[in-house]
Structure formats: structure tokens, C-alpha cells
């Protein structure tokens, strides 16, 4: 089993290299670069045009834009090995610091969402699996299916209109209220403020995963209940609840474990849109902003981070799968 994990790790590293080299190559080989974009205005605020040209030429050299892109890539790799992800083009701040500051909020959102989806979907999924075919279950399943087809940004907008604009119960955007307002709050007040800001983003992030999980658990539970060992359990005199939860559901955990790891990737991609809508200061929003201003170091750093997280998620899924299935653990 260890061997298998090692192989996956190596494959993952290879994938990372491939992704980063592709993105870097594409970025560099397309017409236009951040400097030509900057040319429109004068974001650096340098008044003297002569000085400006010299400055930009220096920047060009520093960014490695004057060399072949492969060289630039290896430079980037070299820097990476030393833990240096480069500096943002916009404000020259280190990329790693920028990403580091944004990881927390993104994890807060994704983590809460994942935990909620998992916790809520288990009882719901078991109910739908065990009572499948009956009217209340069919209604729930159809409703969840429709929910699944509702894009998160549409739901976000609808919820925003209802709760923020019309009812004014919840704040419109951001992770917390303005700094002055925060300063006057107690610790409890600040937590409550955070929760109020989290309600809508977490809700939008969770419902799609929830719908998918419930369907997944339901299908797998129905499959498990068809197995012979369920008949044996009943023949032993076990009650229906014990049969469903102890025997059928325990076997459903096996595919569910893999799902957990894979959902991480999904949450990552969802975070871009949701963070934009709610102005949530996370990695997704940073990515979106960086794309808008073609801030290549930041884009590269974030692409790497996303891919690493997805890789870790897949590894986690593999690990969980082995842990939960004794046939893999002891073979």
C-alpha cells in the first residue's frame, strides 16, 4: 500500500510540473505581457517618461521577459526551490505572503462547507437510501436534484437579493464589517459578525456538494443493501436500523472516502466565483484579480497552490480509501 501511495505522489509531482510548465509557456508565448498592459497607464506612478522606459526595461530583465520562456520557467523553478514565488507585479509584494494571507479565509469557507455537507448528507443520504421509492423520499431526491442543477452564482445572487437587499438581515459582502465597527465590538461580537458574513457564502458553497453527496450515498446504499451479507445480518436477527447503519452504510463509507478528497478540487474551483460575488478575501478572489491585471507571478503562484491542493486532496482520498477498506489495508 505504501508503494501505491508513493507512486501516486510521484505521478502527482509530474502532473504539477506539467501544469506549471504549460501555464508558464502559454503565458509567455502569447502576445502582450504585463508591461505592454501597463503601458496604457502609469500604475507605478513614475512621472518622467525617460525614467519610466529605463525602469520598465529593468523590470523586463528582472522578470526574465527578455530571455526564452524555458529559461524563464527554470528560473521560476529555481526560485521556487528556494521558497521564493516571486513578487506581484502590482505592488511588488512577495507572492508567497499574498497567498499566505489568503489561504486562511479560503479554508475557512471551504472547510466549513465540506464539514457541513458531510455531516448533513449522511443522515439524509441514509434516509433516502433506506426509504427509497416512497413519496417523501422521491420528493426530497427530486428537490435535491434540482438544487444540484442550480449554479452556485445564481443561488448566491438570489440569496443576496432576498436576504441582503430586501430583508437586510445579512451583510452584502466581505468577511467582516469595517475596521472601525470591528474595533468597537467585543470578541463575541466579532465572532457573531464573522458568522453573519459567513452564512451566505457557506450556504452557497455547501448546497451543491450536499445534493451530490446525498445522491451518492443513496445510490451506494441501495447497492450495498442488495448484497448477500445484508441477508445474513437479517438472518442473525438484527433490527432494520442496525442492518442499514452498521452493515450497509459502513460499506458505503468506502466510496464516500474517495469522494471527500475529490470534493476539495471542486471547492477550489467554486471558490473563485463565490469569493468574487461575496468579496471574500480568499485565494479565489486573488486569482480573479490577478487574471484581470495579468499579474503573472501571482497567477503562477496560485496555479501552483491550487494544483498542490488538488494533489493533496487526491492523495488524501487514496489514503482514506485504504484506511476504510480492510481488503486494501491488509493485503
Amino acid at each position, binding site marked *: 500500500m505504501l508503494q501505491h501511495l508513493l507512486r501516486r505522489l510521484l505521478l502527482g509531482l509530474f502532473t504539477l510540473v506539467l501544469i506549471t510548465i504549460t501555464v508558464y509557456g502559454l503565458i509567455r508565448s502569447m502576445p502582450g505581457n504585463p508591461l505592454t498592459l501597463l503601458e496604457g497607464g502609469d500604475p507605478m506612478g513614475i512621472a518622467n517618461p525617460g525614467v519610466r522606459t529605463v525602469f520598465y526595461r529593468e523590470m523586463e530583465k528582472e522578470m526574465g521577459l527578455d530571455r526564452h520562456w524555458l529559461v524563464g520557467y527554470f528560473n521560476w523553478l529555481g526560485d521556487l526551490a528556494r521558497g521564493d514565488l516571486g513578487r506581484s507585479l502590482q505592488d511588488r509584494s512577495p507572492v508567497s505572503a499574498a497567498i499566505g494571507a489568503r489561504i486562511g479565509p479560503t479554508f475557512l469557507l471551504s472547510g466549513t462547507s465540506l464539514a457541513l455537507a458531510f455531516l448533513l448528507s449522511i443522515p439524509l443520504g441514509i434516509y433516502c437510501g433506506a426509504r427509497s421509492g416512497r413519496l417523501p423520499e422521491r420528493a426530497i431526491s427530486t428537490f435535491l436534484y434540482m438544487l444540484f442543477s442550480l449554479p452556485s452564482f445564481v443561488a448566491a445572487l438570489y440569496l443576496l437579493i432576498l436576504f441582503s437587499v430586501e430583508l437586510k438581515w445579512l451583510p452584502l459582502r466581505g468577511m467582516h464589517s469595517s475596521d472601525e465597527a470591528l474595533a468597537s465590538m467585543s470578541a463575541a461580537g466579532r465572532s457573531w459578525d464573522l458568522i453573519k458574513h459567513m452564512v451566505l457564502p457557506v450556504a452557497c458553497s455547501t448546497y451543491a456538494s450536499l445534493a451530490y453527496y446525498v445522491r451518492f450515498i443513496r445510490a451506494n446504499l441501495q447497492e450495498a443493501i442488495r448484497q448477500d451479507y445484508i441477508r445474513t445480518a437479517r*438472518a*442473525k436477527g438484527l433490527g432494520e436500523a442496525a442492518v442499514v447503519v452498521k452493515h450497509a452504510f459502513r460499506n458505503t463509507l468506502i466510496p464516500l472516502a474517495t469522494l471527500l478528497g475529490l470534493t476539495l478540487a471542486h471547492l477550489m474551483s467554486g471558490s473563485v466565483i463565490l469569493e468574487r460575488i461575496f468579496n471574500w478575501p480568499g485565494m479565489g478572489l486573488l486569482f480573479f484579480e490577478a487574471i484581470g491585471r495579468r499579474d503573472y507571478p501571482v497567477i503562477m503562484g496560485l496555479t501552483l497552490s491550487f494544483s498542490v491542493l488538488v494533489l493533496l486532496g487526491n492523495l488524501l482520498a487514496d489514503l482514506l480509501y485504504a484506511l476504510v477498506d480492510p481488503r486494501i489495508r491488509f493485503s
Partner: protein
Amino acid sequence: MNALLEVRGLKTYFFAESGVVKAADGVSFAIDRGRTLALVGESGCGKSVTALSILRLVEPPGRIVAGEILFEGRDLASIPEKELRCVRGDRIAMIFQEPMASLNPVYTVEGQIVEAIRVHRRVSRRAARSRAIDLLKRVGIPAAENRADEYPHRFSGGMLQRVMIAMALACEPAVLIADEPTTALDGTTQAQILDLLKELQEESGMAILLITHNLALVAEAAHEIAVMYAGKIVERSSVRELFEHPLHPYTHGLLGSIPRLGAPKGRTLPAITGTVPDPARYPAGCRFHPRCPAKEARCAVDEPLLEEARPDHTVGCLLVEGGVSPMEARG
């Protein structure tokens, strides 16, 4: 009336979209303490359904529509589910055909036996565990203390069937229903399992209902035999009597088709012509008549009833006169 378990007129039907399948259509038999009754027939004749019906383990769309299952002063077909669960695994136990599929792969062997014990007895986990290990030793699992903590996938088919027997015996049941327990095993293992069952029966005096399609097995393992065809029992007697004086033409056919060492070479193995009827559309009159070599006109019209043709030997055939089979009458 000292039969331990008596089944009277059991009818188990399946209600499918395409029609009603009368899997068991008026089955009656009784088993005494310390005796083994073999229920024999081709696949599709309804013997497994009969066995499952005793503990009401038949899944929808099938259900028991008529009949009584008398055991320890109660009719198992009509008692409430809660009461039935006290019978399952405790007073009547069941083992199945595919041991690998009939045990839950995510729990240890010891765990599943302990579960069988603790569902019916108030004992500590330690006491249950030690009993489980004793049971494993009794059924012949070597190094029982160590192997008890292993998972089912680490056992061979024969070993697993022993585990299932151990699990079935956990609460010292009065009746053991064995549904094709050796069909999935190789020849040597088959013999071992049957010997084990015989030993256990002699020790405890439990009754065994053995479901099988293998007549040769029956000669070794059973005291009485009931032959089933198309949902009905067509002949019933002690094993010896049946082999010496088969009455029903179907039984003749079954016995004739057993390959025998020392039979003259160059002769084709006699087989019964035709195929088993579709359980949704049984033929009118005697259900065997389309395939019967001795049939007469009235066989297509009148349904035969089980009648005692010889001492302790009932048969359901219109053409049996004076204890003589129509097959012998033809010569």
C-alpha cells in the same frame, strides 16, 4: 405432533410487472429433532424461496400469501416482526451458498460472530469473544485465537463456510437451515463441511433443513428427502426408501441422471427432456406432465395431490397405483 418445525401450505408469490410468479405454491413438510430433511430440486423450483420464507427473509416484490410455519407453539408467518427477530439467529439459524459474499468484508470474523451472540444474549464483550473463539475451534479453524481477528477476505471458501456455521451455531439454535452450503466449494471441502454438520447435529440434536440440487449429497447427509418441482413438493420419504423405490417420474429422472462410476460405457447419460417451466406460467394439470415419459390424458387436466402411496412415503402423481411407480409399470 412432535415435529420441531412444521410448514403447512406455504405459498410465497412474487408480484412483478410482468405477472405473478408462484415460487412456492402450497409447500408442506415437517422436520423432527435431530433429523436432516433435504429439499431437493432443479434451480428455479422454489426450494430457496421456501427456505427464506421460513424466516420471512423474502424481499419485496415477494411475500408470503398463505400458509403456516409452526415452530415452538407459534406461527412464524404471522407473528410481529419484533418477535420474529428473536427467533432469527437464536432459535432458527441460516447459512447461505456463497460464504465470501455472505460475510461483511469490513468487519472481522470475530466481530460478526460476537454480533450474532450479543444480539440475543446479555453477555460482556469479553465473554462473547471467548465463546466466538471456542466456536471457531469447534468448526475446525486452525489457530482460532489469531485468525479470529482477521477479515473475511483472508479466508478460503471452505474456511469461510465453517465461519458461517460457527456464527449460525452461536446461540445454539434448534433448527439450522442450510441453503446450498456446499455448492460453491470443491469436492473435498464439500465432504468435510457435510461431516462437520453431521457431527454438530449429533452433539446438539438440532434439526437441519438442507437445500440442495445435488442428489448424491443427499444420500450422504440427510435422513429424509422431499423433492420439489415447479413450486410444489412431488415426493417425500426417507432417503433410503426414495433411492430404493422412487415413485414419481421426476424422481426417476433425477436419479437416472446421476453419473455413476462403473456404468457401461458408450451410453448417453439419460436426461429429462424439456426444461423447467416458467414460474409465471405453469402448465395446467400436473406441472410435470409436459416432460413426463409416462403421461396420460388426464395429467393435463387434474392436479395431483400428495398422497401416501407406501408407508411413510408420499407422492403427488395421478398415475401411482398400489405403491408402484408408473415408470415401473411401463417397464
